[in-house]
């Protein structure tokens, strides 16, 4: 088991009212799974992903990640946990505009106490693996959307996470590029990386091993 959510509730208080963003979510994810989260806009997909990624908290329920109880550990420890095990991929890539491809890839490593030589090797490895060696000195603005997302995924993978969380990774891409990214995910999954992706497309979802449907913050 990689992670387990037990009866998770998340809400916000607005104008004296309690608005539920997640309602009674229970979910177990095994290592090596490829899960697609689906549902209409505003149904809580991103919220769920953020909770799983520990970027966002929740108000009720339990969350176990590997052997740790996320609901009861300290903020700092939690940060270390996701730093080590989780990689994020975003719809709008979120590459840093002022940094080159190479520097964008290196950035997460700077926060993880790798030596300069190690970082270099890991970045070179990643550039190689994604076939973007020729683009290493370009800035994000000089890449197409698909290429940028490629760099985004490479950055998520660079410190060998167990879990990739991807929120509509193909949302800004045309179908051909989207297809490429999905192929890449499939390949990563085959190599043993667990993937949870949010998607609107049935076709993309079909790449996965399991589909979770959300409606108004509830699993259906």
């Amino acid at each position, binding site marked *: 088991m990689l992670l387990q959510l037990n009866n998770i509730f998340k809400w916000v208080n607005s104008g004296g009212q309690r608005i539920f963003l997640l309602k009674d979510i229970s979910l177990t994810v095994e290592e090596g799974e490829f899960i697609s989260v689906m549902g209409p806009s505003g149904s809580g997909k991103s919220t769920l992903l953020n909770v799983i990624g520990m970027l966002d908290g929740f108000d009720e329920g339990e969350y176990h990640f590997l052997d740790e109880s996320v609901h009861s550990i300290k903020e700092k420890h939690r940060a270390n946990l996701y730093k080590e095990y989780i990689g994020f991929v975003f719809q709008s890539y979120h*590459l*840093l505009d002022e940094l080159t491809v190479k520097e964008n890839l290196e*950035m997460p490593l*700077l926060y993880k106490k790798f030596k300069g030589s190690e970082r270099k090797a890991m970045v070179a490895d990643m550039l190689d693996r994604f076939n973007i060696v020729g683009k290493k000195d370009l800035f994000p603005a000089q890449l197409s959307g698909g290429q940028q997302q490629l760099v985004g995924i490479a950055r998520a993978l660079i410190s060998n996470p167990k879990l990739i969380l991807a929120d509509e990774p193909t949302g800004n891409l045309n179908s051909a590029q989207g297809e490429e990214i999905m192929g890449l995910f499939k390949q990563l999954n085959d190599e043993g990386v667990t993937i949870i992706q949010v998607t609107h497309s049935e076709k993309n979802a079909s790449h996965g091993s399991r589909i979770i449907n959300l409606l108004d913050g509830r699993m259906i």
Partner: protein
Amino acid sequence: MLNLFLKIATRYLLKNKLYSFINIFGLAIGIASFVLIMLYVNYEKSYDKFDGSENVYRVFMDYLEGGEYVPGDANAYIVSGPTLKEEFPEIESFVRFRRIRNLVVMHNNTPYDGIVGSLADSEYFDVFDRGLVKGDQRTALNEPYSVVLSTAIAQKLFGDGNPIGQSIKIAGDDSVTFTITGVMDNSNRNTHIKNDLLVSFKTFHTWKIFENDWKFTWNQNEYYTYIKVAPNTDAKLLNQKVMAFVPEGFEFKEKHHMEPIEDIHLHSNKPYEAEANGSASSVKLLAIIAFITLVLSWINYMNLSTSKSLERAKEIGIRKVVGARRPQLIWQFLLESALINCIAIILAIMAVYILLPSFNRFIGQNLSFATVPLKSLAPYFFILIAGVSLAAFYPAFVLSKYNPTKVLKGKVQTSKNSLDFRKGLIVCQFIATIVLLVGTFVANKQINYLKNRPIGADLNQVIALNGQVLDRAYDSIFYQDFDVLLEEMKRNPYIADATSARTYPGDNFSNMNSNLGLTFPDGHTDETHIWYNYGARPDYFNLMGMNFVAGDTFLQTTEKRSNNVVVNEEMARFMGIIDMDALVGKTIKFWGQDWTVSGIVKDYNHLGMKSAVVPTIIRHDRNTQNVLIKLDEKAITMTGVDKALGKLERIWHQVFPVSTYNYTFLDQKFEALFNEDRKFAKAFQIFTLLAILIASLGLFGLTSYTCIQRKKEIGVRKVNGATITQILQLLNQDFIKWVGLAFVVAIPISWFAMHTWLEGFAYKTTISWWVFALAGFTALAIALLTVSWQSFKAATTNPVESLRDE
């Protein structure tokens, strides 16, 4: 259209209360400081500016000092004025002032003291061009025993009645009465030579209190002399001629020298000035600080407005999409700027009105908008308007430049240039801050240095009493009574010791004689260096806690004065003496007389700490100018001092029933000699604080801008594992770099400025390296505190917020 813009502007200001407050507040502080300082600067510059003042000059004497002619003192000879007028047709008229010392006016048998009066020539009203409120200025000072009063003194003596034709007496000579022939209104006059009362110069010939002085020879040189030259006279040329001119019978190695009366207050600092003058360098420094503060507040305004503009990008985009053209947008934002600036100016003027009384008390002046001619404020007003427009135009320009399509997609990217420009502004602010900080530290260090520097005398618990005995002549009976007074005082348990002297440390030049011509023990006669002397009783040195390097005080003889003198070390050095002990008992000559040196007193600072020790001879004399009292240990408490003071006054009036009475604490008077500098240091401090406050506001603005700009980046980095500390480091390291850069630039500027300022002191503190370090660290600390407030907020924001995909 205008209405709509105003409505939007007002709403916007109200919606962003913190931003509006910071912005308006910062501007208001800057403008208010500027106006306050400029009122002061203008006041200092307005001294002796009156109708025709450009043609009025003061004549003073240059002395030969070490082979070179240098300005000697502020006075000229009694015959200087008439002789020069005779010789040079360019000189239309002259006025001499002879100060009347210890002036006490008697009216209806009541004594009035504390009045500043002079003998003055009848052309006074011609030269100074002042009309009389009452009386005829053509004749007012023509006849002997005529007196002109200021309105304030006339009011004090006669109330609302008409003083013209009334008579008064002046203590010292009971046999004559003076007739009041005029009342002059000089309440608003700003001059270095102040007079409450003028006595016609012709009185001089017969008036008993100047009995020995009235001979018109080249021997009398205590006359402030002012000349008025014909319009369009080449003053430089005339001055050259005056300096080259050697009058008949004039045997001194001295020259007459003219200086414009308008320059005296700020540029002249000679011995025997009519009053302590201002300092041009202090005024200049303050003016510079005023400009810096003002510019800082504008920089701030630009920074804040542009940083805030990001939030308005959407509004601008929409406006452009619906057809607004750039000039229209610029107008809109200019109008907004105008609104903010108007509010700030109004606030600033209100603040000035509220703060003016405290500021006046602080600088010891009486500034108001009324005393400053509005005309002279015009250039400052122009600067203000120009600066405000410039400051307003910049944000309007930047804001209106946004590309609508990008803006609406949420991709606000202001150009790198404008960001660099703003960083440059911040660096400038830091340079100013660090320079001001160094200035404050050095000024305070210098004041402390002067305060703690040993004076060479113990002024603690020493009081100088002086009063005018009104019913006595200075005859032998008076001197006997004076001895009785001292004996009485010594017997009092609260009083440790009592003596008398002509002057004392802290009394500055007043009451000291300046002299030229001295024959050393080795027979060499020096005619070119000025030295000083005064008289004192033998126990003066002991009471003042002065120490002897060799010898001792005057040998007490049966007589009350002797030919014994004590010289200070500086005097001994001047005479080329190396072995001090050998000087004791030696004979020196001056005033056509032999004097025996009984002792060499260790150098002490008679003239305050701003001036170096001058060569001084102290003669054995029973002078009655000042009674010096050392209070006993018993009187160390507040009530003890009060009791002692009460007792002193009782004894004084017992011995001299008809007299005035004044007293001064010596330590206070001594310290008052650098009051100007202390005030300056304090003003420096206040305006430094304000400048720092303004700079912090600006930094606050820029940080919030940077944090918004880098919101996404911060989010991405956090998601990729950056900790809060790492984010803080990332955000703050830029500011540290800027402070570092500012520091490097500020060091030479501040060193040079303070080095120049210290030149005005005889004793200078060192500008130590730690002053710079402290200023740098203070600036850095302030910057980090200001910045961290915002960057901490940014660093702790949940990245989910900043990375949400639209």
